[in-house]
């Protein structure tokens, strides 16, 4: 399973993340931490006129947390905060194993993380960036 799990999509987003860089003028910044493993990320979003125009992340973490953050940004850039929250709710459903096929389609590449639902020890890794985004959109940090 793990051989498939760390398949090309995940490996690619981990080794060559598009959105792993600083975003010095971001309008919103929020930190997320998994205290048990020490993984921490900082999420940066530019939100203008009700649209997420750009986003990035920095920090340290395992392949799952890094790929999850990168895929998430890919999905939410260009969308409204409400749409981003909707994707987060779909992601939650996928991890809980209650997502429909149609909903999974909507998640696009994030669907590559579906197997996390069978790896309870890694759920927190996959959720870190999504939880951080929700915290940010709900007014956490700055």
């Amino acid at each position, binding site marked *: 399973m793990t051989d498939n799990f760390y398949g090309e999509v995940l490996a690619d987003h981990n080794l060559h993340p598009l959105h792993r860089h600083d975003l010095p003028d971001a309008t919103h910044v929020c930190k997320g931490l998994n205290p048990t493993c020490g993984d921490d990320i900082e999420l940066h979003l530019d939100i203008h006129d009700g649209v997420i125009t750009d986003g990035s992340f920095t920090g340290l973490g395992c392949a799952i947390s890094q790929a999850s953050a990168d895929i998430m940004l890919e999905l939410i850039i260009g969308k409204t905060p409400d749409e981003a929250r909707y994707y987060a709710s779909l992601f939650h459903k996928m991890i809980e194993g209650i997502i429909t096929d149609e909903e999974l389609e909507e998640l696009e590449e994030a669907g590559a993380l579906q197997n996390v639902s069978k790896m309870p020890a890694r759920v927190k*890794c996959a959720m870190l960036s999504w939880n951080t985004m929700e915290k940010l959109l709900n007014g956490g940090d700055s």
Partner: protein
Amino acid sequence: MTVSDKLFSKADFPVFEKYKDLVYLDNSATQQKPRQVLERVEEYYREENANPLRGLYDLSVKATDAYENSREKVREFIGANSTKEIIFTRNASESLNLIAYSWGRENITSGDEILVAISEHHSDLLPWQLLAKEKGATLKYLDCDKFGKYTADDLKKALTSRTKIFAIAQISNVFGRVNPIKEFAKICHENGTLIVCDGAQSVPHIPVDVNDLDVDFLAFSGHKMLAPMGIGVLYGREELLEKMPPFLSGGEMIEYVTREGATYAELPHKFEAGTVNVGGAVGLAAAIDYINDIGFEAIEKRENELTELAFNEMKKIPYVNIIGSEKAEDHHGILTFTIEGVHPHDIAAIFDADNIAIRAGHHCAQPLHQHLSVQSTTRMSLAFYNDEEDIKRFIETLKTIRRRMGYDR
């Protein structure tokens, strides 16, 4: 069956009957339990269970005997002078908290110094951190070099006339190196400083004699040495324990209770409030019998052979970096490592997919990881019941990690 046959097989460990393909290399976190321990615990609950120390009937006497005989077994195992010096706790963490709360609150005042080795597990750090904050004392660290080594000179330099207590593990759960506790105890005592030894990683693996080491306190856990979870030991020098106030209060730790106050039970019961874990204590005694039956000579020989085998194979893999000493003999069954470009969580997940249990993270030793400038690490830790096949499978998987993470495709 000879001792060595028994030692080198997993036949005594039912978990490997259930999970035939499991390679268990997380022994520093907890060890698997042999049938002899499980059967003894069951026998206690079937045939001797009653509330000990209180009941005025035969079954309660049996339970009391089972409990107190276990204490005697522990006393003998670590060479303490009296069973008054053996306090049963839940685990090493509780033992260390007991010292900090009871001894610490009486003896530490503002301006005092508490010295803690930088490699300490959080259980042997946080109680001291909290105590220092509460009392306005200073918490100081003794740093090791990158090989995990502490020197007598470093210790002498770190001690001052205000250093009341020094806390250090006999074997670090990250480095596996044995610290020179006897030498350190002498230096501490010449300075009027007490020494607390965390024996969680040493008592299951090497002979430990509290009189020979001359430590003031020793803490360890049963579950890391074949016994059930929920039973631990605090050894303390009798004259220190005598002067210490109770830690937890409640049943069976009192002598007389009036509306105004109470006088406390004699040692060791002063520190054992409430109904105690007799099942755990008899399981620990059975584990000590099991260990004594094999003998530390054979255990150490076996664990060192397996460590060396794993160490030498790991050294051949260019992208694997072993934390700590560059000599296999310094690792005592604990090999903590990093792999270039791969996060320890991913390493552990791949091992798990191959049915190999290892540990990833900071091993409850975050300050040490900061000191070594690594975010987190992966650790394999073995026990005498592991075998060459386990090491072979561990190495086979280790070799595939980078490829499976998308490198060198």
